[in-house]
């Protein structure tokens, strides 16, 4: 199948390579030509040109505005994609923007799935991502074999936007868990206890979690080089706050964590790992 891919960063690049390895004919476009260097793919001049020659197009882009511009803007995908083709947006963006893009594409007969992922760079490399999908059931069924090249747990959550709601929920739990791990590590250290031992003990009990394993380990080793850059979690918490406010639903814990992320950004640690929430606590 001719498959397009836009957004070849830490997540997108290994995902695109999996599609190529599965035998698909890969087409790519990137704002900076350096991002597509060395890829076994046809390089397109614009998103619309890429859309014209692909049956399915994947996007993994940072912000709501960027996804909207690539999909609907001048020289965007909607100018090129044929009726019956599908945009699969794996970015993490606002649910209402995902719904808006789906509706606009729908008017041209182009289908859209919001399919944000969780699992980080390692999950993208191992093709073990969790993929939470919003869109029409028949489109999800049709694309399931493609999605299976990228991840293991593929869940159709509901109509367009539902995937992004699930992703917002994922981020709330995950970053709050990172904050909890950071506070535990900080308390252990402040009390003069070896935090590596504490983490080791906790891993066998009720507090065990993937976050404690991965992020807790980084905290113990004081290795703050990114996995996923903290600025992206900070961005996602803006989405969480906006979504909660649209529903009139209080998120008191997320609000506190959001402020810790603001501190992290102010300290210039946005390009580091979110395990840096430990360093935020050490400022106080």
């Amino acid at each position, binding site marked *: 199948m001719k498959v397009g891919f836009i957004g070849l960063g830490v997540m997108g690049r290994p995902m695109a390579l999996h599609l190529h390895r599965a035998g698909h004919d890969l087409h790519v476009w990137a704002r900076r030509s350096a991002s597509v260097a060395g890829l076994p793919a046809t390089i397109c001049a614009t998103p619309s040109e890429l859309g014209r020659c692909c049956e399915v197009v994947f996007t993994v882009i940072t912000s709501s505005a960027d996804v909207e511009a690539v999909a609907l803007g001048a020289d965007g995908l909607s100018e090129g994609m044929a009726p019956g083709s599908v945009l699969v947006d794996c970015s993490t963006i606002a649910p209402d923007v995902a719904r808006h893009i789906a509706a606009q594409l729908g008017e041209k007969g182009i289908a859209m799935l919001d399919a944000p992922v969780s699992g980080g760079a390692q999950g993208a490399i191992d093709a073990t991502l969790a993929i939470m999908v919003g869109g029409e059931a028949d489109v999800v069924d049709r694309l399931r074999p493609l999605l299976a090249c990228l991840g293991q747990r593929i869940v159709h959550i509901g109509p367009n936007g539902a995937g992004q709601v699930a992703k917002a929920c994922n981020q709330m739990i995950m970053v709050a868990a990172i904050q909890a791990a950071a506070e535990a590590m900080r308390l252990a250290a402040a009390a003069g206890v070896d935090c590596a031992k504490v983490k080791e003990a906790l891993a066998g009990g009720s507090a065990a979690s993937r976050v404690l394993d991965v992020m807790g380990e980084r905290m113990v080793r004081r290795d703050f080089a990114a996995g996923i850059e903290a600025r992206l979690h900070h961005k996602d918490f803006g989405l969480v*706050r906006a979504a909660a*406010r649209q529903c*009139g639903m209080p998120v008191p814990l997320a609000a506190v964590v959001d402020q810790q992320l603001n501190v992290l950004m102010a300290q210039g640690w946005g390009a580091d790992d979110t395990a840096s929430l430990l360093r935020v606590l050490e400022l106080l």
Partner: protein
Amino acid sequence: MKIGFIGLGIMGRPMALNLIKGGHQVTVWARRAESMQPLLAAGARAAVSPADAAAGNELVISMVADAPDVAEVMRGVASGAEPGLVAVDMSTIAPAAARRIGEELAAAGVDFVDAPVSGGEVGAIAGTLSIMAGGSAAAFARAHPAFACMGKNIVHVGASGAGQVAKAANQIVTGMGVLAVAEAFAFANKNGVDAGKVREALLGGFAYSRILENHGQRMLDRNFKPGFKSWMHEKDLNIVMQTAHELGLCLPGSAATAQMFNAMVGSGLGEEDSIAVLKLLEKLSGQA
């Protein structure tokens, strides 16, 4: 002075009336034509569009709901403006949005002042609003005669956007202030102590504030009529949190307060005064 006035809601109507009382020639425009009637009866001229409200005037003032509304009416204003027009927005919007609108108007040759107000409907009617302005000193000076008809405490805070920064800071203090008084009263009540007596005692000390005095009394009277609707306070706190997010600024108290107001809107208290946060605390603590 010849002044155009756009937006004639709870705040805009009495503000425009005070301009007429102050001897200014006022042209009004509102999205709903019937909101213009009381002003026309008082001697204002009706405009057919924001552009028309700007045409031939030295000053045009907007008082509308949110940033997109301000941007829209100011685009109209720019298209109708004659050289030397000063445009003033007295709505509460994000500082970044105000700066953007100021830049767009500057490109059209219009000077812009962001001048949000504090003091509520009572202050608007009495002409005693606090006005916090951002923009050039020259534009502020030109708008000052109009400000003087609508407000008492009129401060030129700084450059474009500075008025909205001051207003956001005002909403931090009032939002947390209302919540602090409500928490103190809930605390007294749950301890079986008369909150009215607590208020009386606190008024003499360092906890004295106008919020403890006025909002506190309304809490004791259980008078939740707005005033200032809690959904609007929530909107303003969202501006605070959005701005903090963009700047990388830690505001833990505001964040917690914003969530309480978010919960108020979600639980149907949005149309009540922001002091209804007391009801939410009582519900959560099993006091209701």
